[in-house]
């Protein structure tokens, strides 16, 4: 069962993931630049991915790792959509500041 993932103890993965996720959450809550927010969301996503890979490896089950590949593919598509939305927003309000973007209501 010697492999690179298990070279590191599982607790560390947990700590790293939690740390990354919290950075992502804080970024989403505190920053106002829409591009940064998008990046932070990606960070949260990848924190979860990392956790999934480590758990899958320690559990000796490859399904989790396969699943992560799918998540990454979908995330790539999602990023494309998100960036496209951002471009569109920028063209409209000439800014990516979310505080200026206040028309998303009834």
């Amino acid at each position, binding site marked *: 069962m010697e492999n690179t993932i298990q070279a590191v103890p599982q607790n560390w993965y947990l700590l790293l993931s939690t740390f990354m996720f919290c950075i992502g*959450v804080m970024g*989403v*809550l505190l920053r*106002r630049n*829409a591009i940064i*927010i998008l990046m932070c969301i990606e960070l949260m996503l990848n924190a979860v991915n990392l956790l999934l890979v480590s758990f899958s490896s320690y559990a000796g089950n490859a399904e989790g790792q396969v699943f992560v590949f799918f998540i990454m593919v979908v995330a790539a598509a999602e990023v494309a959509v998100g960036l496209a939305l951002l471009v569109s927003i920028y063209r409209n309000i000439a800014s990516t500041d*979310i*505080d200026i*973007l*206040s*028309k*998303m*209501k*009834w």
Partner: protein
Amino acid sequence: MTQTIIQTSNLYLPTILIPLLPLLGFFINALFGKKLGHASGWIATAVLFGAFACSLFLFLNLPTGGSETITISNWFYFKNIFIPFAFLIDPLSITMLLVITGIGSLIHLYSIGYMHHDEGFSRFFSYLNLFIFFMLLLVMGNNYLIMFIGWEGVGLCSYLLIGFWFKNQAFNDAAKKAFIMNRIGDLGFIIGMFMMLFYFNSLNFDVVTIGALKLGMGNMTIIYITLFLFVGVMGKSAQLPLYTWLPDAMAGPTPVSALIHAATMVTAGIYMIARSNVLFSLAPHTLDVILIVGTATSLFAAVIGLKQNDIKKVLAYSTVSQLGLMFAALGMGAYESGMFHVVTHAFFKALLFLGAGSVIHAMGGEQDMRNMGGLGKFIKITFATFLIGTVAISGIPPFAGFFSKDEILATAFEHNKVIWGLLSFSSMLTAFYMFRLVYLTFSSSFRGTDEVKHHIHESPATMTMPLIILAACAIIAGFIGLPTIISHTHLFKNYLASVFAQSKLIMPAGHEMSHSMEWILVGTAVTLALVSIAFAYQKYVMQKHVPAADENVKGISKVVANKFYVDEIYNTVFVKPIMLLSDLFLVVVDKLIVDLLVHAIAFITNQIGRALRLLQTGHVGFYMFAMVISMIILLAVQIFVVI
């Protein structure tokens, strides 16, 4: 029951072709009618002649007294109930088939001329074909359910054709009236069928007959079943108290009146009773009810007919009256006589209606006899054929109506002298109002405007040909049922003998009437008819009496002219209370309860929405904050609450 087993192969094809040909005609006319134009009329007529040829083939190839069931498919099983989709071919259904397809094809031919200028030409023929299809199902089915399909189908086609000129609201109302009146009757039919299913586990004619025979004479179950069936018959065959739709049904084009409301559909009730003759023979009380209703209808409609001025209305009431006469015959157990009158009546009444149509055609749509007069000079063929029909319905020998009517009257004389008296009186009235119609329409001088007079012309050959053929039939059709005083072979009775054999065993046969007595009866009937004809002649030809305008009619005549106010009474007793009830329901149930509930739900939802939308500030930062907080809450719930 003599069930002759014969080879199925030679009758199978013509049997299924008979209903399929009109159905094919319907589809062709309904789908491609617009493109076909006037060809659609010829197609519709051709398929009917085809069906008539098939019916003739059956007539010639079915051995005397035989009957054959032709199963198309096993329709459905349900528990121990089995309903096949099968046709029963026996003398009774063949008689009806010949009448329907024979007269039907002549009326189709006539319609080509009559409807020539109508914009709905092909629509008309598609309806007519569909009607014939359902009518054929009605008389061919070997169980009550198939009969019921036809029963409802002809009701639908009757509705469509009465309201054929749907731009006129009065015609639409007449169509709805016919439909609703029939629906009341159909409820009776349905209940009767359910009772049969409950007690006999089948709707097949033969199984029901055997089951009924097991229950025996005068059993209450059979009495109820037959009474409910008779309610259905009252609606379809326009008997008291459900007859009011038939006179209004004259709103439809005249060929429709001839085909549906005189020759075929309205006789479906008589066919149904004749078909279930064993059931009815086992229920003497029901037969009494039928006898009384039939006699009353016959007399009542004849009286109303005396004062009608619309040429088609007179014929409509005459039809109701004649149907009453047929039911009186059935009520006395004289099923063959009833059927015989159905056949002869189909000929001369179709002839009369088509003749009236020809008159209306000549008059450019005018139907009021007070504006006619002297038409005999202008439209000779119509006049001659119409006169033949009138003589036939009045019961003058040797025309068709005489023989069938005489048979019924003779049976009535044996059965009950009062009934005989009433029916004779009704026949006398018939002769009077029919000749009143003829004299007002065809003799003396023209009373309409010069413009109309200029327009009068004889109808085209497509219309006069059917008139001539039907007139020939109205003369000779009676000879298939000669009374015993002339000949001992009653062809019609012999032909149908196998169908009614079972009933004849149950019912005590009347003793043979002495020949002298029968001669006296015949003499009386003919004398009465001649007297009333002479009276009509004296009043309308010698004195040139013309019925007064509607507002000048007084006293009892006014009551009769207004049809004894039956429509008004029905309106007050049934329609108005129902309207009132529906108004009440509108205010109380609909407005107060249902509306309140619905509006309350809408109001609450709206208010909640108004409150909640304040959360939607439009600030993306706030949304994200809410998202994260919600995630944390969900997580907390997951960890601390659920587990």
